[in-house]
Every structure is written in structure tokens, then in C-alpha cells.
């Protein structure tokens, strides 16, 4: 186990360093000058002013020097500065993190609550009508663009329930009811799609386990089917499901980026889209690294969890 943990940590670290290099060089390769965004809202570009600015910001130094400086700042907890807003990136990101995390959390909850039972039922009644129905439903969920689903939901809800996305964020600590009212619908929109993936994985994992000899033996012995399901099949099927939750996260983030746009939720996803549209490369850099780091951390946790759950690894 210890060797496993050490290896996982090392891989995570190497991945992070590699990512930082990739992101940094990508931003520098972009067309247009990184400084242009500062002039954009002023409506003109003055070459002399621009050169002064470049020197002030240190953008005219050689790339390795700039990279070293960036890494130095990162290690001190400084994610850089948004050139467009002229503010520290972290100041802009900080109030938005809890918003996205809450949305992601709720979506993940919905996806598990919808997906796992559906997968179990589907596996238990394989190739019966209910299986086909659930599979079609879940595939439909995976095939829909999540923003379209969001728009359709808004259309239906606004027309029938008079619900509309709120334009101002209310923190759950201030008013839990208003907060949930605002988040439940978008979380459902994102969660439905993720639940499809979880459903499929759960189903195939269950099917695999159910084919195992010891299950068939128990069945032959006449042990009550449901007991078998719960005790043996489900527990062993959970292993790949837990792994998938890590993969799930990637899927979720993708859904969040567009869903935040549709539902006007001011989270990290919306910030990322705005920054990309405006060419605020410095901010994009910090954001992408942040998102990717969260990613790597989640995957690390999942890997460690997997290692602990799988007795073959734990007892090594």
C-alpha cells in the first residue's frame, strides 16, 4: 500500500508540473498580444503606451524567465493577475469557487441518486423491457447537449411554474431555501447527463460481477436473490463505480461550463468562458491550472480510495 501511495503521489506531481508547462506555453503562443486586452475597452491601441506596458508587466522578458517568475508566484499562492480587470486572479476566483462547488456537488448527488439505482435495476432485469427503456433514457441523456437541456428546462419551468434563474446569487448560509431554489434546476440539468454515465458503468459492473462463479454458486444454493445483490454483487461492483466518479468529475466540469452560461450562475465555468472570449490570457492561465489541479487532486483521492478498497492492493 505504501509503495502504491508513493507512486500515485509522484505521478500526480509530475502531471501537475507538465500541465503548468503546457498551459504556460500555450498562452504565449496565442495570436494577438497578451497586453491587447488592456486596450480593448479603451477603444484604441497606442504602440508607445503598449510597449511601456509590456515592460511594466514583464512580458518582454524571455519565456523561461517569465515561466520561472510565474512558478515562483504560484508557489506563494499567487494565481496571477487578470489584465482585463486589473485585479488579482484569486480575488476574482475566490467568491466564485463555492458557487461552482455547490453546483457540482448537487449535480454529483443527483447523478448518483439517479444513476446507481437505475444501473442496478437494469442489470438485474437484463434484456427485459425495463432494461431497454432505462438504457435508451440514459443514452438520450448522454446525447443531449447539456446547455440545450438547460434551455428546454427553462422554457418548461418558466412557462408552467413561473420559475426563472435568479440574477443574483444567494449564499446557502444566508437563505438556504432561496439558494436551493436557485440551484436545484441547473444541478438537475447537469446531473441527469452524468447519471447516464454512472448508470451505464454500474450496469456493466454489476453484470460482470453477477457472472462470477461465487454468485452463481450462491444462487444455485438458493440464497435469496436480493440478499445476494446487496451483500456481494453491489459491494464488489462499487470498485469500478468509485473509479468512475473520478472520471465523472471531468464530465461534470464540461457540463458546468455551459450550464453556468445558460442559467446565469456566476461560477468558475462562466468566468472561464468570459475570459476566453475576451482574450484575458493571464487569467485563463491561472484558471486552467486551478481547474486541472482540482482534477488531479480528485483523481489522486479516487486512486487512493481505490487502493484502499481493493484488498489486493491494501494488503500488499
Amino acid at each position, binding site marked *: 500500500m505504501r509503495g502504491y501511495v508513493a507512486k500515485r503521489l509522484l505521478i500526480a506531481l509530475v502531471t501537475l508540473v507538465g500541465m503548468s508547462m503546457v498551459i504556460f506555453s500555450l498562452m504565449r503562443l496565442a495570436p494577438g498580444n497578451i497586453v491587447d486586452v488592456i486596450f480593448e475597452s479603451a477603444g484604441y491601441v497606442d504602440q508607445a503606451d503598449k510597449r511601456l506596458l509590456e515592460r511594466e508587466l514583464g512580458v518582454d522578458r524571455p519565456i523561461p524567465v517569465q515561466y520561472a517568475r510565474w512558478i515562483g508566484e504560484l508557489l506563494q499562492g499567487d494565481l496571477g493577475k487578470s489584465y482585463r480587470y486589473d485585479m488579482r486572479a484569486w480575488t476574482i476566483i475566490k467568491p466564485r469557487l463555492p458557487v461552482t462547488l455547490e453546483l457540482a456537488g448537487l449535480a454529483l448527488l443527483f447523478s448518483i441518486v439517479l444513476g446507481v439505482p437505475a444501473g442496478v435495476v437494469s442489470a438485474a432485469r437484463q434484456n427485459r423491457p425495463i432494461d431497454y427503456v432505462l438504457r435508451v433514457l440514459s443514452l438520450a441523456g448522454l*446525447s443531449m447537449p447539456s446547455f440545450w437541456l438547460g434551455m*428546454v428546462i427553462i422554457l418548461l419551468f418558466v412557462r408552467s411554474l413561473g420559475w426563472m434563474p435568479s440574477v443574483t446569487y444567494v449564499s446557502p448560509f444566508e437563505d438556504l431555501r432561496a439558494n436551493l431554489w436557485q440551484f436545484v434546476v441547473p444541478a438537475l440539468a447537469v446531473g441527469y447527463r452524468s447519471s447516464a454515465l454512472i448508470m451505464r458503468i454500474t450496469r456493466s459492473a454489476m453484470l460482470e460481477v453477477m457472472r462470477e462463479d461465487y454468485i452463481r454458486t450462491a444462487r444455485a444454493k438458493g440464497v435469496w436473490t436480493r440478499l445476494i445483490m446487496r451483500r456481494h454483487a453491489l459491494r464488489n461492483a462499487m470498485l469500478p463505480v468509485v473509479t468512475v466518479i473520478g472520471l465523472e468529475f471531468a464530465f461534470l466540469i464540461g457540463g458546468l461550463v*455551459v450550464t453556468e452560461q445558460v442559467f446565469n450562475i456566476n461560477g468558475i465555468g462562466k468566468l472561464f468562458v468570459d475570459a476566453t472570449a475576451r482574450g484575458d490570457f493571464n487569467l485563463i492561465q491561472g484558471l486552467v491550472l486551478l481547474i486541472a489541479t482540482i482534477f488531479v487532486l480528485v483523481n489522486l483521492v479516487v486512486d487512493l480510495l481505490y487502493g484502499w478498497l481493493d484488498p489486493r492492493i491494501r494488503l500488499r
Partner: protein
Amino acid sequence: MAIVAATPSVQAETLPKRANAFVQFVKVQPLGVVAFFIILLYVVFALGARWIAPFDPEAIDFAAMLSRPNAEHWFGTDQYGRDVFSRIVYGARTALAVGILSAVSGCTLGALVGAASGYFGGRIDNFIQRIVDIMLSFPIIVLAMVVVAVLGKGNIGGVDTNLIAAIALPIVPKMARVARASTLSIVAMPFIDAARAAGFSHKRIILRHILPNIIAPYLIMVTAFMAQAILLEASLSFLGLGVTEPTPAWGLMLSGTSADFYQTAPWMIVFPGLAITLAVFAFNLFGDSLRDWLDPKLKG
């Protein structure tokens, strides 16, 4: 020499013979057949757009703007008075073109990378796998958006090559993983050692023995990634980072000024969204059926 000439027939991952294969497929995977015909319908739309679409998809007609679906405009019109149905038909062209080009280029590159990684093993394998890990660490849409931000909009013969690169890129590491797994199982086979002992070049071994055996997973992945490519293109166009006006594209029809009007003119977004969903659904279903039929072990 007998060993080299023998086609390995151990795995079930080879493509069965043509004629009775199709009949078998229809029997065993009825859903797959349905999916196939839906895809065919879209291909017909794409190829025959000029004859099928009743209106020019870019013809602006402010007098008819935002009209409900009626006898003249089956799916209604958008905020410029353009016929929604015609735009959907032409949109099939964009979707399939972008989808095929990205899926094929991404899968091909991924297959080559994965096969090389699995075949050469050792340090090369480790290095490539680390890069693959890094790429897989990014959520797909983030990766695509970063590529778009960096490359901007490209144009070679009317096709936005940078968009295709952006969509193909997230596919490469996934395909590489699958190709590597397949390759590893083949490399372990004794006849490969024999071939190497006989002095055949790496290139010949890879081309003659490795690649033909990844064709099955390759085809499955291509269909699966077509679905992902269409979805990703729709998302990018929705965010304003993909195809741009006035090109008819399904994702584009859901974004921009459409966002201003869809609550009063819902047909503007309902139909393009259905078009996307149905296309992606068909490709996913077909891919699933293909996989179930060719190789039941390749699940998940």
C-alpha cells in the same frame, strides 16, 4: 515461412467476413440497425442538402422573422427570417464534416501514438503515458477551449481547421489508451517474437500485424467519438468559439442572439437541439451495438 504467413485467428477482435456478417448484425443488434438508418438519413441530408432544403439557409428575410412553424416554414424562422428547417438540413453537413474529420484525425493519431507506446514499451512507453495522463487530466471542453483560444480561427478551403484540431485533440489520449491496451495484448503473442527474431523491421511488424488488429476497436472508437465530436462542436459554437455566422451549424443556432429570443420563439432552439440529440444518440447507439457485436469484452 509458415509462422509469418499464418493469420492469427485466436482473438475474437477480428472483422468477420462481409456477407453473412451484415445479416448476423441485423439479427443480433436490432437497435444498431435502427441507429444505422438514422445516421444514413443524416448523411442523405448532408449530401443532398441542395435538393432537400426548401430555402437558402443564409437568405435573410426580415419580413418573415420569428414566424411560427407553418406550411411554408416547417420549423419556423429565426431572428433574421431564415428558414430553420433548411438550416438544420445544411447543418448536417457541418456536423458530419467536422465530426468525421475530427474523429478520424483524432483516432488515427491516437492509434499511432498508442500502438507505438505499447509496441516499443520501456521508457518511450512511460514518457508517452505521462503525456497522455496530462492530457486526460483536462476536462474535454477546457482542452478544446484552450486550443481555440490559442489558435484562433483557421481556414483552409472553407473548413475551420483549428476547430477540428481543437475537437480532435481530446480524442487522441483516449484512443491512445485503447490502442495501447490492444497492442499490449498482441505484443505478448509468440509470433511477434518470432517475427522480430526473423529480422523484420519495426515498421513492417507494426503495419502488418499490430495495426490490422486494432481496426476493430478503432472503428468502434471512431463512431463513439463522432458522437462526442458533434456534441463538442455544438458546445463550442454555443459558446461562440466554434463555427461562426452565417454558416448553418446546429450548435450555432442555439447561441448568440437566439438566446435573446428563444423564450418567445422556442422553435428556434427546440429543433436544432433535437437534431443534435438524435444524431449523437444514433452514433452512440451504433457504436454500442458495434462493440457489443464485435467484442463483448471491450466494455466500459
